[in-house]
């Protein structure tokens, strides 16, 4: 087919109509936005390529080109979905794309030429039906945008200056601090879908305590001087990104994510954690701990224990006492690309498991090590009580 530009765009809008409606239906059924986000990404990628690449590159488009172009669009859609944090499960996203693509081929090569005799001669233009379907798609997209905007959680702006806490966030919202916004006495999150961004928290029993909440995002937060944990997460699923946690008490922990094994994995990434007994800790949790810097801890820098399943990658651990990365109590740990430097033995503790191990597996745990840099530690690795360390 030798498409006109108008024909390409009209055909694209017409074939996306059914998948878009299906996505809306699916989104309503599962109460998730990803099907709609995926369908809109497919539409956006398709229209952009139609207008900027395909029209110029293909004065005539043979039928077989649908396959490679479909794969190019799939790669673009999946890449953008990842970039924009579209929470689509991979298999479901691929199935949705494949179904939409097959439907599009059936419409373009069979249904449209059947319904509109001159479809081919008109270069893919659909006449009034094309305008109507374009109108429906635009209306639908606008409606979805309106709905998304209307259902967005409210954004609460925290002004610069000191605010006396604890702040309790018990409904979905986005809390954004202005430069210099400080909460004294801690923040407590108990609702799903809460985002806390650009806030400094000083003091409190826990700097930020997340309890029984899912889909929580803590981003660019700074926590200092808490009595126990800098960030304490219980029975929750969180993403903690680009934080700074500085704790100093003898029994304090920088970040503790615990008891969320049956929930979506939590992610701790890009944080700088300093001081305390342990830096980043998981108990009975699914977690990804990556690209953090942990230093100055008095017992362990990164601890994954009590049957946690964790990926620990690309972290930097330096100048800690006892253990750099600890995988304990029947946990399963993938430890890759980390740097653990200068772990000192805690001789005073008289605990043999704290004698300066870069990476330690303990009590039935299983740790898989790949490409880690272990330097100037008293012991590079060690295992105790039926724990296993394997290297790839």
């Amino acid at each position, binding site marked *: 087919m030798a498409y006109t530009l108008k024909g390409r765009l009209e055909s694209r809008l017409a074939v996306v109509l059914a998948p878009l409606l299906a996505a809306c239906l699916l989104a309503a059924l599962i109460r998730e936005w990803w099907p709609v986000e995926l369908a809109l990404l497919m539409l956006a990628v398709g229209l952009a390529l139609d207008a900027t690449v395909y029209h110029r590159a293909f*004065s*005539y488009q043979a039928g077989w080109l649908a396959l490679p172009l479909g794969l190019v669009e799939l790669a673009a859609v999946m890449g953008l979905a990842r970039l924009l944090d579209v929470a689509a499960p991979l298999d479901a996203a691929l199935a949705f794309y494949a179904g939409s693509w097959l439907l599009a081929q059936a419409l373009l090569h069979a249904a449209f030429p059947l319904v509109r005799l001159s479809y081919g001669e008109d270069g893919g233009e659909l006449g009034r039906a094309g305008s109507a379907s374009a109108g429906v798609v635009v209306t639908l997209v606008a409606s979805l945008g309106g709905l998304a905007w209307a259902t967005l959680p409210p954004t609460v702006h925290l002004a610069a200056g000191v605010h006396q806490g604890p702040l309790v966030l018990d409904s979905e919202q986005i809390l954004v601090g202005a430069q210099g916004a400080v909460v004294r006495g801690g923040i407590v999150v108990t609702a799903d879908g809460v985002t806390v961004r650009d806030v400094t928290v000083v003091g409190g029993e826990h700097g930020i305590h997340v309890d029984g909440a899912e889909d929580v995002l803590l981003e660019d937060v700074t926590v200092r001087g808490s009595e126990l944990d800098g960030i304490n997460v219980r029975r929750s699923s969180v993403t903690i990104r680009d934080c700074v946690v500085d704790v100093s008490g003898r029994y304090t922990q920088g970040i503790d994510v615990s008891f969320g094994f049956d929930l979506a994995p939590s992610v701790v990434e890009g944080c700088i954690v300093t001081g305390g007994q342990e830096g980043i800790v998981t108990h009975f949790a699914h977690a990804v701990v990556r690209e953090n810097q942990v230093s100055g801890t008095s017992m362990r820098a990164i601890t994954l224990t009590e049957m946690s399943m964790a990926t620990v990658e690309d972290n930097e651990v330096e100048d800690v006492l006892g253990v750099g990365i600890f995988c304990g109590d029947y946990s399963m740990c993938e430890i890759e690309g980390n740097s653990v430097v200068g772990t000192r033995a805690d001789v005073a503790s008289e605990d043999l498991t704290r004698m300066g191990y870069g990476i330690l597996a303990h009590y039935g745990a299983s740790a898989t090590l790949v490409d880690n840099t272990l330097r100037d530690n008293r012991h590079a690795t060690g295992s105790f009580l039926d724990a296993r360390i394997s290297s790839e």
Partner: protein
Amino acid sequence: MTEPCAIVGGGLAGFVAYATLRHGGLEPSEIAVFGTDPDPAAVWRRRAASIRQRRMRSESDGHCLPTSFPGLAVRSALRRRSVVPLLESVCDRYHPTVEEFLDHVAELRERSGWDESFEAACVERALPVEEGFELDGRGPFAHVLLAPGHPGLALPPELEHDDRAVHAYEPHDYADEVEVVGAGMAAATEWLNALAAGSTVISVRRREPQRRPLNLSRELFTRRGLAAFHRTGAEERAGLLRGWSAPSYPPGRAWDEPVERAAREGRFRVSSELDGAPQVICATGFKRGFRHDRLLAALVEEHDLDTQAGWIVLAPDCTVPALTNDDRTLALAGAPAQWAFPAADTLAGAKYAARRFLARVRAWRTR
């Protein structure tokens, strides 16, 4: 009483128009077809047999059905229980055999009710009247499509009375030495035929043939290429049409290898002049221009229609502007419609004219 439609011409272009009108909801009793042979493929069959054509040049859409889908590739896939025709089709490599095409025409002829509408008559005059057009006293018909076909076979003037000469589209065998005049698809087919028959072949041509899958760029089959074509002025358009009539045949080893092998054996050569061979096959196509067709020539003369270099000037929808209004249509299909659609002499071109003719009939019926 005014009858809705008439098709003048019982060849493939008229047949495509008939099938399209039937698909559009017209009954056989509402369509009159005037032609010389009730078999719509009769003329084409004779020509294809003469040049021993085995496969169609056109691809999957080269059929007479009113809708592009399902075409012959789908039917072939179902019949053979194989996806190969479909895969060939998406790669633009599916070329139905002549036998498959003729079977399809016969089946569609039977199914469409063509014979109910057909009347053996050679119409020589289309007379505009208030309600439409009278065709040699029949009618009036509100909408008339003229699909008279090619006006005759073209022979080089110097060979018109030469006993050695035979046109490629006339039945013939092959002498020991054959000169083939022309360089298009028919000529290339004749090279292979004559070589296969054991002849020595001299290709007589004044210019080198172009190698392309179809006789025109694919863009010119859709609005993408047609929009610019329709914006051209009369002289420019005539120049384009003349340029596009240059001889061509498809690329591919099936065409090249036999010729190259014969050339190595001294059985094939190219010459710019005739060289006295005992047989001269003229693969020189058809006469061009409305003046060679009695009906079209009379129409132009009686109504002073706009013409340019042998073409009747048409609207983009293949209608004759001076004789078409909201209540009546006079349209052309087949080779005479090239002014609106450069590939009008192909099946795709026949469909282009037919679909626009149907659109006018529908609009008239719903007013």
